[in-house]
């Protein structure tokens, strides 16, 4: 009953209608996007009607009619997938770019598959041979492509789950899922009777479960504190809080481990309420650290005291042009716990002046380590 072209336009109409309804409920009922999607649905429906009425406008000769009847193509999902891609593109134009990009990807993939399928079906009268040439033409792309997409979807869904769960729940979820996968794999490997349909059943069930859980997690969003931190930009340099007290946000999840792949010019210690520093190659403690100008240099802060401390580096002050107010310039580590360490990488373009020297200090601890930039 439905001609090939009409199937495409009917599919497009359906997708556009569904998108429009979803858009109205999820985003904004009176937005231009909803209007655009309804417009697409209406125009597609019109064209679907035309193509149905004119039977795609095709006029077959007798021979062509026989040939078409003989070589009638089999069922194909690609038209509908192509239509889905088109709908995603239109939806993405009205919503978020990621949906648009996804739509382009689907359009490209479906277009390629549909073209190859059409070509292979007309290659000969032998359907087995046609399948063979189709496989040869596109097999090398299909499997890796599907695998990449599949893995990407799995990774994305897992990530949504972990972002929405709390730290402890996420750990338990991960352990349980890993254990289940391991157990199933073990059973399949050692129980040959379980292979075949059972494997397929388990795989499908797993995929559905992941889709459902991942989808729910994605819709529910990140857990609260991550969302707030991201929104308020808590970890940026502008929000460093370098006082002696613990900061609610800046010191949250202080990174108490240091990767020492970057070479370190000096290490500053707090021990027994005193401040001291050591540099590579110098046997004694030093009270001055020299850092070359405009060169990113790392200093490690190691807290050997009982209480938490942070290292602060004072780099003089500058006058704000708009207000004429002098503001302190500097930076600091997060609060560091007992026997833990943090790193500061400093790039200082100008030397200090005698009026405003540079120095390291630890709030609450007497003493300072001079910082010289020649």
């Amino acid at each position, binding site marked *: 009953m439905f001609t090939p072209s009409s199937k495409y336009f009917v599919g497009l109409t359906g997708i556009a209608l569904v998108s429009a309804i979803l858009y109205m409920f999820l985003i904004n009922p009176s937005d231009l996007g909803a209007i655009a999607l309804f417009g697409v649905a209406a125009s597609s429906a019109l064209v679907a009607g035309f193509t149905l009425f004119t039977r795609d406008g095709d006029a077959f000769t007798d021979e062509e009619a026989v040939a078409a009847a003989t070589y009638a193509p089999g069922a194909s999902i690609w038209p509908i997938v192509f239509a889905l891609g088109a709908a995603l593109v239109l939806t993405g134009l009205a919503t978020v770019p990621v949906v648009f990009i996804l739509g382009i990807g689907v359009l490209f993939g479906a277009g390629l598959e549909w073209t190859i399928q059409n070509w292979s079906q007309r290659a000969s009268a032998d359907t087995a041979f046609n399948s063979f040439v189709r496989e040869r033409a596109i097999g090398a792309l299909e499997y890796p492509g599907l695998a990449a997409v599949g893995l990407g979807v799995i990774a994305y869904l897992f990530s949504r789950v972990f972002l929405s769960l709390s730290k402890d729940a996420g750990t338990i979820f991960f352990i349980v899922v890993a254990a289940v996968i391991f157990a199933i794999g073990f059973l399949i490997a050692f129980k040959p009777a379980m292979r075949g349909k059972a494997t397929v059943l388990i795989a499908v069930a797993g995929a559905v479960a992941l889709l459902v859980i991942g989808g729910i997690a994605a819709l529910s969003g990140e857990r609260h504190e991550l969302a707030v931190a991201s929104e308020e930009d808590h970890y940026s340099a502008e929000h460093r809080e370098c006082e002696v007290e613990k900061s609610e946000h800046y010191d949250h999840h202080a990174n108490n481990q240091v990767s020492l792949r*970057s*070479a*370190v*010019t000096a290490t500053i210690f707090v021990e027994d309420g005193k401040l001291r520093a050591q*540099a*590579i*190659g*110098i*046997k004694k403690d*030093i*009270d*001055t*650290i*020299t850092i*070359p*100008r*405009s*060169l*990113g*240099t790392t200093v490690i802060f190691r807290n050997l005291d009982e209480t938490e401390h942070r290292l602060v580096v004072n780099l003089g002050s500058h006058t704000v042009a708009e207000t004429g107010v002098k503001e302190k310039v500097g930076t600091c580590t997060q609060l560091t716990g007992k026997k833990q360490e943090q790193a500061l990488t400093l790039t200082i*373009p*100008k*030397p200090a*002046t*005698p009026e405003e020297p540079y120095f390291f200090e630890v709030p609450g601890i007497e003493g300072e380590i001079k910082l*010289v930039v*020649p």
Partner: protein
Amino acid sequence: MDTVNNVKSSRRRFSTTVAGLTGLLFLAGCATNAPQDTWQAKGPNAQKISDLQWIVFPIAGVVGVLVLALAGYIMFKYRDKGQPIPTQGHGKPTAEIILTIVPALILTVVGVFTFRAIFELAKTEDTEMIINVTGQQWWWEYDYPVQTELGINTPIISSGQLVMPVGTKVLLRETSRDVIHSYWIPALNGKKDAVPGRIHLLRLEADKPGIFAGQCTEFCGLSHANMRMEAVALSKEDFAKWVANQQKAYTSPADGTLAKEGETVFLNQCVRCHQVNGLKKADGTPALAAPDENVYSGAAPNLSHLMSRNTFAGAMFDLLRKNCRSDVWDATSEEFGAKYLAGVSESCLNQTDLRAWLRNAPAMKPMYADPTKLTKTGGKYRGMPNLGLTEDDIDKLVAYLLTLK
């Protein structure tokens, strides 16, 4: 018969010529004036490398000559003379085993000596002095952190020439501001890369006072071949004098002199990139250079006490005229310290090169200084640009720079 004799005679002449040329080439390697000769160690670290070379080189040489000679002999003896192809065998296991074991044994002997040298050269626990070395296109910066036991009470910064005391285990902490460079003073030790974001350690120690030449040995751009350095070893007393001089306060030239006018030119032009510690602006505030705003790698040579050094422009050019330079370079160990510490006087200044540099630095040393091509570096220069100074400005600047002792 005559033809055969002629052929033999021409072959003999050809062989003699080839042998003669090869000999000459070999002898050319025995130059006496080779300041970067790795066989002329002037310190214990370089001596360890040289000692290792003396073991490995003859072994490798003998093996190499044997292999080449044998290969040549076989190629000649069994060359194609139309004879049938000999029967093909499946190898001789005894020969193959011997030919595996013998090289392995030779390599083991070489390896033992090599590893021992490597670990000895990597020792740093007994360091007596630290110098931070920073490579930048295309010069080397040296800063001496505070080390009160050596009289260094305030940090010293210099470039081009690394000054160190004799008989002292000096540890260089090398890094780079831009690309990878490599520090190499053959007379004192091997090479060590200066890598951005990392600190690599290299030990230097000189047995006697003198100047030791070196150069960058990791390709680093347009003027890699011109990125040189010198290590200057002074006796401990002379080094203390050098340190005291480097820590002397800046003295502004007297008013009304050409040098004073040169100070003004310096403040207007050169301070954009070059720092002279203690130099003050007209309003009395410190004149702080801003190379981070003008130079891609963020720094330019500090010119404090410039005339206490012998070189400039990344040690590419001498500040001393030829005869004065020879006087310093060829001085005996006993005289060297005094001659070096005398610095550069007006009569000894290499005015030609210094003026040419001030006139148009990029013409003297390739440095990507074309202002129309600076988009990749955000408008910043990689080296010194052409400042368009007048001859009058140059006269004043030279007079001023001479006061920086």
